[in-house]
């Protein structure tokens, strides 16, 4: 028996853990890029604010400001700090459903991030902080995969993780790939280095090499991340995972239909600049529709406001 309220907390916790990990990866890769690129190529940090949809809404332009906003800002509900705090507070009220090791992993992630987040802002200590955040979230993923029964509790965690990964991947592509594709003189800006960095930030670089797609090509990279069914970070794979998860849950028909709709739109998405941007916007709306359907089916309003859920349920789109 899984309570509707607890299912919602599990779902959101998984989304926030995934959001923390992907945000950490994006910042980590952008910091590496700074080192890799010659100083003649100006590297701006503002585009990263497009990932949470915050560009133009927050007064951050410099590296320090943007990184502080993405990693350590308690007022940004999607910062690594806020995501981890929210995930832990949601899981705290669903703790009885988790394996003991899983709870301890979440708790350790929380203790680390809340006491070390300022280290993520300074460039010299940032790498160590981000590596640790990524390692701890992956550890949690592994613990969940190896200690949790495949019951509804696990399915809601998996559902939250897949939908968040699909959403974040779309956002990263929109923020980084769309401008790169639009660039008319690629060589001058060392775009191949930038594509490699983008793929690395999505843990997709190795998959790209293995598919013998080298040398680096923007459209091929985008195709991999959008469509490759075997690469676990691709949007196609995430949507497939959502569908298989939903089939394990009761009353899933409407949510499955919404997921299938998102998949059909995805197959029509192509790797050219304008079309990609429009396609990714469409994906974002499709995922929001799946989310709304999941919400309507499984998390009907309870008689009282929930003191635990963060006030920001979805990001400003």
């Amino acid at each position, binding site marked *: 028996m*899984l309570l*509707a*309220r607890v299912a919602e907390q599990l779902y959101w916790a998984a989304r926030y853990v995934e959001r923390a990990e992907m945000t950490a990866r994006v910042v980590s890769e952008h910091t590496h890029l700074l080192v890799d690129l010659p100083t003649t190529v100006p590297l701006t940090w503002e585009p990263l604010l497009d990932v949470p949809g915050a560009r133009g809404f927050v007064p951050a332009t410099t590296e320090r400001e943007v990184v502080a906003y993405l990693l350590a800002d308690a007022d940004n509900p999607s910062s690594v700090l806020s995501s981890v705090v929210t995930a832990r507070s949601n899981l705290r*009220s669903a703790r009885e459903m988790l394996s003991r090791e899983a709870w301890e992993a979440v*708790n350790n992630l929380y203790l680390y991030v809340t006491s070390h987040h300022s280290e993520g802002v300074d460039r010299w200590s940032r790498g160590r902080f981000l590596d640790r955040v990524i390692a701890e979230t992956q550890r949690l993923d592994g613990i969940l995969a190896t200690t949790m029964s495949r019951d509804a509790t696990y399915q809601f965690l998996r559902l939250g993780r897949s939908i968040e990964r699909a959403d974040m991947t779309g956002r990263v592509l929109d923020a980084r790939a769309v401008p790169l594709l639009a660039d008319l003189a690629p060589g001058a800006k060392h775009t191949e280095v930038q594509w490699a960095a983008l793929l690395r930030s999505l843990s997709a670089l190795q998959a790209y090499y293995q598919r013998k797609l080298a040398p680096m090509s923007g459209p091929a990279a985008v195709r991999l991340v959008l469509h490759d069914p075997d690469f676990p970070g691709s949007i196609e794979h995430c949507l497939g995972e959502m569908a298989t998860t939903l089939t394990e849950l009761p009353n899933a028909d409407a949510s499955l239909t919404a997921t299938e709709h998102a998949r059909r739109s995805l197959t029509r998405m192509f790797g050219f600049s304008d079309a990609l941007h429009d396609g990714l916007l469409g994906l974002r709306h499709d995922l929001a529709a799946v989310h709304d359907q999941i919400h309507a089916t499984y998390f009907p309003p309870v008689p009282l406001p929930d003191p635990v859920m963060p006030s920001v349920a979805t990001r400003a789109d």
Partner: protein
Amino acid sequence: MTIADDRVRGRERTRSRERPAPTAATADSRPLWDELLDADGQPRPAAGALVEHIRGLGLSELQARQDAADLDILGMGITFTVYSDGRGIDRAWPFDVIPRVIDAAEWRTIEQGLTQRLTALNRFIDDVYNDQEVVRDGVLPAEVLAGSANFRPACRGAHPAYGVWAHICGSDLVRDADGTVYVLEDNLRVPSGVSYLLENRLVSKRAFADLFAHQSIQPVDDYPDELLSLLASLAPDVDEPTIAVLTPGLHNSAYFEHSFLAQRMGVPLVEGRDLFVGPDDHLYARTIGGPRRVDVLYRRVDDLYLDPEAFEPTSLLGVPGLLRAWRAGHVAIANAPGSGVADDKVLYAWVPDLIRYYLGEEPLLPNVPTLRCCYEDERRQVLADLGDFVVKPADESGGYGLLIGNQATSEQLAEAAAAIEADPRRWVAQPILSLSTVPTLCDGKIEQRHVDLRPFVLTGQRNYVTRGGLTRVALRAGSLVVNSSQGGGSKDTWVVEDSSHPATAASATAAASAAGR
């Protein structure tokens, strides 16, 4: 550095500097009873191995194990919630690494005494909600019952399974300077602390792994299994009953425990808003697959907030109609609503009489002599020597509202006297017991600190008593208040077979050599 040396120095220090007010120990000038060491500073038989081990470790190694235990507690997320400025704050559970040791032979007597007590208390609760023979036979004055804040008229005529109402009880035991163990109070509503008892063992097993390997320390972790089978035995006649733990929510001070027990029993943790009572008077949970019936509720919400239809109408924590579903026999509730009538601090004074009345036996565990301020002669006695008593409100728990006469200022004493005169039924008074001590690591030194003990008793078709209990320790020098909400800490409690007993020593040696040591 030995425990014995520190004990002497610790007492000197607490007496001369850190205790401006007179304390229990100085008040009656008897030496304190220490749980590990006898009056000559020699280890008590059951504590021999532990004391020797700690002496072997030395103070810095002991401190290192304390630090490791503190880190374990933080990492495991063992917390409790305190209220400050209207907010609940999550704090790491305070734990002292030096355990308290109880001789297994003594424990068997305590266990029998607790079983006897809970059997009588349950007979009493069933009686007061039905025929009230105890009043008719003149054992309990009608006005005591009439004045009880925890008597729930809405529960009259109910017949829970096996005639048992208080399924889970946490009784507080204290040991006076002469070594006598008293029952200080019974907690029959929503007693908490058992999760810390279990977690303390986990932490202390790491700190003293070598001792656990060589000594027969009785295990404690079967409690959740016993609790689960008790709850299952209460279910109405259904296949595979659904059991749930009901919590007031994340902000309750014992939320950690509610979550812990639900997890350990593998049952859902629910809040009032997750539940509703249907038109068929059955209890349902709102699940992802729609409403599902709930057959047994282990409730950790106080009576008054359990059902706004039957009790406090403004409560948002409860479930409208729950009492109706319970009275219809469609859901079992542990502890049954109304059980608190027997843990009233005024009623406490009658418990020995209740044991004699219902069981025809003499109490095996003594009560602390208790003066009832509702009786004029006893009230005069209390008011005449207020400084010699602990004065307690009948309707508070958690150490709130408690006045320890010999540590109070004259203003506090005057206030208390006025409060007693204003509402005598609300107050009882007991002589100040000294409370035994256990050596405790305080700021890098070993000092004596006062302790109590809360064992947990399960009652259903049969009885179960935890092996030992939760030892709570007053971390401030000289303090007698052990509640974690007021600066108390905790210790692991070891029930140990006296190793000087030949059979036990032989089996321990055999086990050790079998393990290749």
